[in-house]
């Protein structure tokens, strides 16, 4: 009995020691501003989780090597504590709790995906920890009245809005017939709501409105309906699965539709996996390297693309670019707040109005970035079968002219 008591005392003493020593590992240590982040390094989001982490790391390295952050006349450097959230929302919420209450982190970066951001936001909100996130676009994140959540990306409902408006414009301002198929997850359903709004605005009609299951790998039924009803635009959003399945079955079933608009094309490596079959697909993107935004750290999109490729060995998808932008926003806010007080930093974040290589950033009261439009690129292939993504809308940044309508399969 005595031995047992001694062991219990000993163990609890150690536990107490550990818990207190962890707290000393706080927000600003020496000349370091410690940010916390839970990203998906394993599990189903692991590829995009890694893009997110690489984006963060690249920006940390760049900002630190270019003089760091100046607060109160002193120079600080960024440092990030990472945890792996295993692509699991419950784990993400636990890790947010852990980063804040055990590691003493006072500023956070976002995880990958709307679902995980949704799980973490209530925790950061509860502790009043400002979080700048770059990979959660779901509209519902910005309607809950969160005060400490800021997103550098355009909300999900704007993803394919441009496509519908472009189709209407090409139709001489008259409404078009839309067929749509969306996966049943928070993100895709938000994209759908955006289309509904755009359709109402432009007097367009939705003639097919299918929902796709999470395990989706067959959408032949939807495509048969498309063949029969002949819509002017086909819109598909179901992450990489949706994009890959759609192109495979559209090309195999020879479905002719004047305009095909999708999300997640570059994450799906569409032109690499499908080659010429993916030609003419329109894809929504948060960022493209040919956009002409500029900043002092990364210069512009082309330079960012080259530097990132040099550092990580692959071309940056937009998920990496927006993650790098999140760090630029934090740096800017710290310097304007000139303090590490969480409330002051939050207010500085809310007042952000800047241009980065990724786009203009200015937050609406809900926390979403409203000053950066989405761009649409079109997959274009040359006669040798080499495909490239070229920006076609909005016109301001277009590097190629939109090919519309898509040529029929029998004429290709």
């Amino acid at each position, binding site marked *: 009995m005595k031995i047992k008591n001694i062991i219990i005392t000993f163990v609890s003493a150690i536990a107490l020691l550990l818990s207190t020593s962890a707290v000393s590992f706080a927000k600003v240590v020496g000349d370091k501003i410690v940010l916390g982040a839970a990203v998906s390094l*394993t599990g189903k989001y692991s590829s995009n989780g890694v893009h997110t982490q690489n984006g963060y790391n690249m920006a940390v390295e760049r900002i630190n090597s270019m003089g760091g952050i100046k607060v109160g006349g002193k120079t600080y450097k960024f440092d990030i504590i990472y945890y792996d959230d295993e692509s699991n929302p419950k784990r993400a919420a636990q890790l947010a709790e852990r980063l804040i209450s055990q590691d003493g982190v006072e500023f956070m970066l976002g995880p990958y995906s709307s679902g995980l951001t949704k799980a973490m936001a209530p925790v950061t909100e509860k502790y009043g920890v400002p979080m700048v996130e770059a990979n959660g676009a779901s509209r519902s994140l910005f309607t809950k009245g969160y005060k400490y959540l800021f997103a550098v990306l355009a909300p999900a409902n704007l993803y394919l809005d441009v496509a519908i408006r472009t189709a209407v414009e090409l139709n001489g301002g008259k409404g078009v017939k839309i067929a749509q198929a969306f996966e049943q997850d928070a993100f895709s359903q938000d994209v759908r709501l955006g289309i509904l709004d755009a359709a109402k605005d432009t007097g367009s009609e939705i003639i097919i409105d299918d929902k796709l299951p999470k395990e*989706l790998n067959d959408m032949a039924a*939807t495509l048969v309906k498309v063949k029969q009803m002949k819509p002017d635009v086909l819109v598909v959003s179901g*992450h990489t*699965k949706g994009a890959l399945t759609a192109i495979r079955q559209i090309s195999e079933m020879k479905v002719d539709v004047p305009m095909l608009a999708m999300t997640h094309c570059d994450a799906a490596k569409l032109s690499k996996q499908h080659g010429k*079959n993916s030609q003419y697909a329109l894809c929504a993107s948060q960022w493209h390297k040919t956009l002409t935004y500029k900043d002092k750290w990364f210069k512009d999109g082309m330079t960012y693309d080259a530097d990132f490729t040099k550092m990580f060995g692959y071309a940056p998808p937009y998920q990496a670019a927006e993650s790098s932008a999140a760090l630029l926003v934090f740096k800017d806010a710290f310097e304007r707040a000139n303090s590490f007080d969480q409330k002051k930093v939050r207010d500085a974040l809310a007042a952000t109005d800047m241009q980065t290589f990724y786009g203009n950033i200015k937050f609406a009261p809900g926390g979403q970035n409203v000053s950066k439009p989405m761009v649409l690129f079109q997959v274009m292939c040359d006669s040798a079968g080499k495909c490239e993504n070229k920006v076609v809308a909005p016109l301001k940044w277009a590097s190629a002219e939109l090919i519309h309508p898509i040529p029929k399969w029998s004429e290709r």
Partner: protein
Amino acid sequence: MDFMVFQYPMITVQACLDGILLGVLFALIAYGMALQWGVMNIINIAQGDLVILGGYIAYFMYLYGIHPAWGVIVSPIIMYFVGIGIYKLVINKVVDRDLFISILATFGISILFMQLMNFAFGADVVLANSGYGTTFLFDSNVVLPNSKIFSAFVSIVFAICLVIYMKKSKLGRAIRATAQNARAAKILGVNTEKVYAATFGINAALCGVAGALISITFTIHPYMGLPYTIRSFMIVIVAGLGNLPGVALSGMGLGVFEEFADYILGTEFRIGSVFLLLVLILVYRRFKLSKKREYLK
């Protein structure tokens, strides 16, 4: 609800053909499950994950410039040894225990496989392009991708070969004998341990074929295995063990059912409707069984 599928006769034909071609593929996976269930009394929850692993083998051949159709030869050979490996490591320890233990064990294998595949191959959705064209029927009103026709054809060939092998070969006879009565077979000199290992290997090889076909026709992803397990479980439940024509028929039936559910209820209920059907069939079977028991009383 949308009854468009019945308004245009061509769509009805399309849905039936799509369903049958798909169902033949399901039947192949289900046949493997029925085989090992009958012989070893094991319900393999990892069935779908073996399918996906087989798909990755074909995908990697495709990546290295080999036509993925060769995957239907290479994938089963590799998967056969994977199956034997799993048997030696795990299954032989649970084969004589009750069904619950084996379900838990294969459930564990399933999770392990998902995570390992995610770790090794990444979380991206991938596919292998066969470059097969398209067949147009009825004045191009019905469109069938040749990859689907190819996969149905290969499934049928493999199923027929397996039936002949089971009937004619020594191992096939030993497998059937063990399925009928393991103890008696053992007494009569059948090495049941070897039979079990071979059965599990053959099942994994069938999954390998199916996986290669799925990577050609659809897409694969480390976490996409479960719907295939459920479908094959359901087909076996309907057809019963050791009833090959039954498996083929209920496979095609399920394929057609899925297609029609897709048109009528909407794509979001496609897989949900399979679960619903499974519950209905289980309830119906129970109902039938209880009637029988009363009769026996």
